[in-house]
């Protein structure tokens, strides 16, 4: 039997960030329990810190929105809806931007204190426009975020050519979000874990939480296949699998479900991109070792993580259209990850009414890497009994219960 102050279930970006911030800012006794399953989203991710991009529906969001529009139009027959920027609510902007602002300092801190480098790269995120429709789309985006005007840069065809010489001549320009950057997602998770380990967190990797120990409305710990972990607080950071743990902890269900994303990776190439790119077909990022990562499909296929030719073709075609030089390269490998999706695309954070000793840190959908830092900080504040630095009300799990009651 083991007794900890905090047990974190899940060692992806979010769980690892919780472990790091808690161990940095408190003297609590902490354990992190993680089992690698096919589809772990943090390891599958592109590592984009696209705070504005994702909030306004670029990056993964544009593919997600296109998929939604398509499903919508198919469901409604011939009536094709106009594709409009898909902007998340203000609370998410604040959440994402606050987290984004933490990375430069976090990067330094990890390098200096823990000797780990998660490869933070200042890249910007450019939305490439091919035609007037794209320009209208981009204009709608900027109109929606007047308060962030200083973070948006318009590039005409000539400027774009100068900054991204390998982008197709067919591009008429781009908008660049200058605060959107990238990290190496594996290294980020690794950095959090290594930092946490150095700060005294017990890491139980390759260990599966099999059940939650509950006493009335109090969560008292978890069981793994061969051990029992008692704790004062259990943090549920189990990604696409979070609902399972939630059910055991609370006896209720919450809408967190796997959203599959397939990724295409090129061979190493010389540096052909100066920044990250989003188009209405895909997003493209060149990583520090030269590989070019193209993402990502948005599919609801349960826990399936197989690759399929149709999606790989779509993504590759989108990328070749934008960067014709890719035609001289090869696809090295593909994979699929499972994002923890929620119906309103917002994460589920914080305590659950009527349940003690339990916190949600899940449902981060397509922005877990970006928002891991702020999630780690907020969870630490909650556990220390402080008022969270951001209002967690919009992220509470109760929003779904209320919605259900209203619907019911």
């Amino acid at each position, binding site marked *: 039997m083991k007794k900890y102050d905090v047990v974190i279930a899940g060692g992806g970006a979010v769980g690892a960030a919780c472990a790091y911030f808690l161990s940095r800012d408190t003297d609590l006794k902490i354990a992190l329990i993680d089992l*690698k399953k096919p589809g772990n989203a943090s*390891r599958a991710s592109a590592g984009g810190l696209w705070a504005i991009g994702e909030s306004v529906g670029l990056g993964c969001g544009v593919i997600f929105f296109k998929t939604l529009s398509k499903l919508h139009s198919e469901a409604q027959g011939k009536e094709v809806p106009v594709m409009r920027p898909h902007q998340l609510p203000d609370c998410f902007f604040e959440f994402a931007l606050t987290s984004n602002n933490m990375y430069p300092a976090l990067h330094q801190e990890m390098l200096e204190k823990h000797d780990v480098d998660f490869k933070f790269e200042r890249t910007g995120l450019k939305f490439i426009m091919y035609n007037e429709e794209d320009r209208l789309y981009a204009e709608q985006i900027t109109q929606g975020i007047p308060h962030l005007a200083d973070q948006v840069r318009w590039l005409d065809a000539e400027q774009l050519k100068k900054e991204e010489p390998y982008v197709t001549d067919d591009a008429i320009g781009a908008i660049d979000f200058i605060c959107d950057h990238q990290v190496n997602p*594996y*290294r980020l*998770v*690794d950095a959090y874990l*290594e930092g946490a*380990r150095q700060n005294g967190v017990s*890491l139980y*990797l*390759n260990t599966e939480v099999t059940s939650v120990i509950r006493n009335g409305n109090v969560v008292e710990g978890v069981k793994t296949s061969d051990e029992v972990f008692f704790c004062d607080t259990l943090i549920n950071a189990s990604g696409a699998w979070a609902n399972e743990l939630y059910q055991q902890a609370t006896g209720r269900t919450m809408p967190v479900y796997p959203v599959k994303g397939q990724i295409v990776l*090129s*061979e190493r190439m010389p540096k052909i991109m100066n920044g990250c790119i989003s188009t209405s077909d895909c997003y493209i990022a060149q990583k520090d*070792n030269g590989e070019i990562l193209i993402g990502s499909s948005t599919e609801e296929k349960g826990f399936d993580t*197989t*690759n*399929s*030719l149709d999606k*790989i*073709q779509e993504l*590759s*075609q989108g*990328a*070749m259209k934008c960067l014709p030089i*890719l*035609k001289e*390269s*090869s*696809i*090295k*490998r*593909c*994979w699929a990850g499972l994002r923890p999706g929620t119906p309103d695309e917002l994460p589920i954070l914080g305590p659950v009414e009527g349940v003690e000793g339990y916190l949600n840190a899940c449902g981060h959908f397509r922005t877990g890497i970006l928002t891991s830092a702020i999630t780690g900080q907020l969870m630490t504040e909650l556990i220390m009994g402080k008022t969270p630095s951001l209002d967690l009300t919009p992220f509470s799990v109760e929003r779904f219960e209320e919605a259900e009651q209203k619907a019911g």
Partner: protein
Amino acid sequence: MTSQTHDKVVIVGGGPAGTAAAAELACHGLKSVIIDEAPKLGGVIYRGPLRKTDSLPHLDDNLKRAMTALQTRYQAHRESIEVKTQTRVLGPEGSNQLLLSDDSGLSRQPYGHLILATGCHERSVPFPGWQLPGVMLLGGVQLQLKSGLVRPGQRMALVGTGPLLPLVACQLHKAGVDVVGVYEASPFAKLAKEAVALLNKPKLTLSGMSMMSYLKKHKIPFKYGWGIVSAQGEEQLSSIHVAPYDSQWRPQRDLAEQVAVDAIGVGYGFVARTQLAMLLGLEHTYSKVSGYVPALDEWHQSQNHSAFVVGDSNGLLGADAAICEGQLAALRLAWQCGKITESELFSRATKVNNKLARIKKFRFGFDRFSDRQPGLLSLAQPQTVVCRCEQVRKEQLDEAIAQGVKDITSLKMRTRIGMGDCQGKTCSSYALDYLHQAGLTENIGVIKPRFPLDPIPFTLME
């Protein structure tokens, strides 16, 4: 129409196992498709020269007989066997198709039943200098001789363990290479202990002895209990250091000798080639000799996915066993398809199994003789690159393990080992052995292959 394609048995790999399976299926009226990446059937072992040649002075009669036997086996049933050569399997596509690539692009191959006969690849053993041009793996040396019809070097040494060492030494010598030494890691005494096991295949043992006497006659030194320490050279291999190995195969460096060579063959074993089986989701178990191998029943059929895996891709037993396994899988499939009765299945299978049992006893004798010892892992120095694609050095593995890495996926994420173009085929067996040596044996996992199994040009996606 669809039922016809779905009835088809798709065999991946046209070596001894795959070809034997196809021929056996044909005997029972089942049609099959063999997919092979080479331009010719036969697998690495029996493919033979890839261009026309009048004579093969360096290839022994046994090999020529085996090559002919395999060709005969195929020719007798060629109407039932469709062969797709120079075709690569990139991975599964959907639930009952494979995605293929060849000169004309991508295509899908539907299957009703699947037999994987994907063979094995060589086990890499990193040591200082192993990346120098001229340092080759033993099977590669043999392929240059047998398929490329080129001499891999002028002045060569062979290091490693097992029966391939004397065989390749003889082949090299017959091809006109100056073989300056053969270094077998295990002591002779250990081989002598296996005499009883080796007598299960008296002909093979005899042929092994005749190889040894050939080497003796031509004054080619064959040293037991010796092995590689390092390789040197500026841009190309110019010499190696070899030394006596202790019982753990740790080199006694103070007794090392320098040997001038321009090429060497390194053969410390093979690893089952299971990338496709893993991508298909078959369960695997670890074997020290063969690496991760699929979990199969006595007919070589997997529980999940019900694919058959035969030949070296389900454990290293060599070509003769591969033929038997191909036949067993085909018989079982013929029975499952209602082509033979249960009594026919068992009477035919008993004969094949008896033969297989003799081969196994012989083979296990050699496995015990060539049992890989931990000293081999100490050849690599801190600066030695262990993952060639990603240039990961041994000291990076040490650092990661010291920081608490306990499994191969974490090791991969932390060091990029296995993340290169070869997807870990070269380095993962070293990494696994290394984790084992560090006392990590449970749940260490495996470097999972990714789709596609070989890089494919973006243009194929247009």
